[in-house]
Structures are given as C-alpha cells and as structure tokens.
C-alpha cells in the first residue's frame, strides 16, 4: 500500500485476501484458428436466425452484425459479402442434412428401406429445426442463381437412390422417364409449403403418406404401406 512518502510495498499475490486472488489459469488458451472458427460459427448461428426472420432479400449486413454482436469490419473479414455469409449458412445446414442422410442410408441395405430412413430423418430435422429448414428450403430461392443451382444439385442427389427403386419396380418398363426428378420436386415443394404456412410442426404425421408419394409409384400402394410399417 502506498502511504506517505515511504516505499511502495509489492505484495506476493498469495498474501492477498482470497477474494482478491486470481484463479490460476488452468485451461489452455485456444489456438487462434479455433477461436476464429468458434466466432464464425456464432455469427453463422445468428445469421441463420436473421435470414429466417427477415428473408434473404430484406436482410442487410447491418442486421447481421447487430444480431451477431460484431463490427462490420469483422463481418467482412469473415464473409466478404451477405451472399457468401448465406452460402456458408446454407452449406452448414446442408452438411448436417448430408450427415443425417448418410447415417440413414447405412441403417438399411435395401433402397426402399434407405429411402424410408431418409424420409424419417428429413422429417425429424425439419420439425426440430424449422428455422434452419426455412433458410435451406425457402430463403435459398431468393438468394441468387448460384444458390438456387447449388440447392437444386443437393436435391438431385436423391435421384440415384430413387433410380435404384426403379430397377426393383415391377412396373419399371413403363414408368415415366422424369419420375425421379418429379418425386424429388414434389417432396421438396410439400416441405416448402408446410414451412411457409407454419405447419412444419406436424410434418412427422405425414410419414406414411410421404412413403406412398415416394415409393408408391415404384411398388404400388400396398407395398408402400408395408414398407412404411416395416421401416
């Protein structure tokens, strides 16, 4: 303590009362890269909410930085533009969906079984995370031609699995040539409309109908019902 004109007495920190002692630093400081990544993910989470609430077109960088609690300079250091921010939001959601679907596919050996499992995973994801689903299915439509094309490629990734069902179908000789993209488009539209009208919460109840919509054209209604029950 300073006092009068006497010398400053430097005390050892351990002699200070307990509440004034700093805790020993027991955790390792995260590397710079990891801290940057954590910050990026925090901003992406905030951006997801903003894009879902305001729509892609009405969202500005100011909205994004305000929600994320960062400065404009930090935003541009991470994303360079609103479009690139959205792209990363979308890709983060798409990566989680891909992971979920890969696990679903590995849960069954038959193509119809894999499709049933994929439908269950998709319905669960949309119901449990409607905000992310809205961004990935609805807002992507107004995020520019590059994003629309990217989204279409992701949807089309389901087509090879559907074509395997065509190979197993007793009606395969007569099925329409554009059946697979039509089925993918139909399911995507259905999910889109349910999200747009705020009915995503009850999507799971559609599982059996969805199985019929997707597998019925290949195997008929009775077989589709059986597949929905078995899977």
């Amino acid at each position, binding site marked *: 303590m300073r006092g009068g004109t006497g010398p400053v007495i430097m005390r050892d920190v351990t002699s200070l009362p307990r509440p004034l002692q700093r805790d020993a630093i027991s955790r390792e400081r995260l590397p710079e890269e990891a801290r940057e990544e954590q910050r990026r993910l925090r901003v992406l989470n905030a951006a997801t909410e903003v894009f879902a609430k305001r729509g892609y077109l009405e969202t500005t960088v100011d909205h994004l930085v305000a929600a994320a609690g960062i400065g404009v300079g930090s935003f541009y250091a991470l994303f360079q533009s609103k479009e690139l921010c959205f792209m990363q939001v979308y890709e983060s959601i798409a990566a989680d969906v891909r992971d979920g679907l890969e696990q679903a596919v590995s849960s069954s050996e038959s193509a119809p079984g894999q499709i049933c499992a994929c439908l269950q995973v998709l319905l669960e994801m949309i119901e449990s995370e409607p905000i992310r689903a809205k961004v990935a299915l609805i807002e992507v439509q*107004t995020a520019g031609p590059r994003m629309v094309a990217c989204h279409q490629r992701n949807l089309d990734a389901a087509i090879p699995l559907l074509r395997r069902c065509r190979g197993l179908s007793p*009606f395969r000789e007569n099925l329409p040539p554009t059946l697979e993209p039509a089925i993918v488009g139909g*399911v995507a539209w259905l999910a889109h409309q349910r999200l747009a009208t705020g009915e995503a919460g009850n999507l799971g109840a559609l599982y059996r*109908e969805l199985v019929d919509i997707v597998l019925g*054209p290949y195997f008929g*209604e009775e077989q589709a019902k059986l597949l929905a029950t078995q899977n």
Partner: protein
Amino acid sequence: MPRDRRESISLGTAPARPCDPVGPTGEGSSLRQIQRAVVDLVCERGYPEVTILDVVERARVEEEQFYHYFAGFQDCCIETFETIARRCEEHLYGAYDVPGSWRYRLRCAGYAAADFLRDNPREARFAVLELRRGSDLARARVEAAVEFYTDLVDDGRQELEDPSAASRAIARATVGSILSQVIDQARVGDSPEAEQFVPGMMYLAVRPYLGQQAAMEELTLSRPQDPPR
C-alpha cells in the same frame, strides 16, 4: 380463395381487377405495353437487374403512365403475375369444368396447362422462375396461386371410399412435382412437351386416389378429343 375463384370463373362473374386491360382511350394498350415490357425485361435480365426506367423505356410510355397503374416495380411485377395467373386459371378451369370423371377432367386440364405453357413461354418463365427469385412478397404470391391447381388435383380425394383417409399433402406433392418439371424446362428456355409431360404427371396424380392400374393406364392415354357424352 381457389374454390370461390373457380366458381366465379365458371359463372363468368370473376371480378375485374384494376389491371385488367380495358379502357376506351387506349389506356389498356399502355398497360399491356408495360406488362409486356416487364415480362420481357425480367426474363432477359433477371428481376434484380430491371428498373422502372428500363420498363418505361421498353414500353415506350411516360413514367407518369407507369405510376398511374402501379405503386412501384414490385407492384408492377405482382400485378402482371396476377394477370397471367388469371388467364392461366381461366384456361385450365375451362378445360376442367366439363362433363366426365375427375380423372378425365384432370387430363383435359393437364393438356390445357401444357398448351398454355407452350404458347406463353415467357410468361411461364416470368411467373414460375424469375418472379419467385425476385422478392419475398412476389414469391409468396406465386406460391399462393399454386393452391388453385392443388385444388383440382385434391378433388381426387372424392374418388376414395373415405376421402378423409388422405390429406391435401398428396395433391400438394403432385403439384410440386409438376411445378418442378415446369421450372426445369423454363430454366433451359423450354416448355414441357405435352404428349410426354401430361401422361407422366397424370400417373402421379391418379395413383394415390384410383390405384396403380388406373395410373398405368394414364401412361398410354392420349390427348382427349371430345368430352364424353
């Protein structure tokens, strides 16, 4: 809305909208010029790249005339879409509202839709592709208009022994399938070939309500010539 709209189309009492191209002093023609210009420009450049000045220049009208009809660019696009949608609905419902089974009437409407797309490729591209990308409000209006077509497919539930056993989701998915095919074609500047497109769509539409055999038959049926007696 769609059921009321169908009734009003059927009775010929569909209310005239402010943007209907009517008017004694050529007023309608400048409106049509503006609407034609906005469709052409949006298809050529994309919705975000078009301005009101572009539209009035292409339409060869004064800016004041534009604001006589529309509050702004988005309003112009949405009202133009409504004009196109109304024409399409009247065309389709005219083909659907004939004597015969639901399946037959839907097939007639399917070919009418394919013909409309073939005869109005720019309008189709404007409505299903460009406008949906343009603004959230425009996208919402386009998507709401699709419910009209969902109604026609959803009528198929009445073919079931227990119509409540199925939900509207089936019709929505079918219309979504059709819409996705139309969008795919519009992306490459094309319209669906009716004789290939309609049987495939009828297969999807009919199967949930009338079964596999009826659906397979649809793949072999050609364009209806005359309504059944």
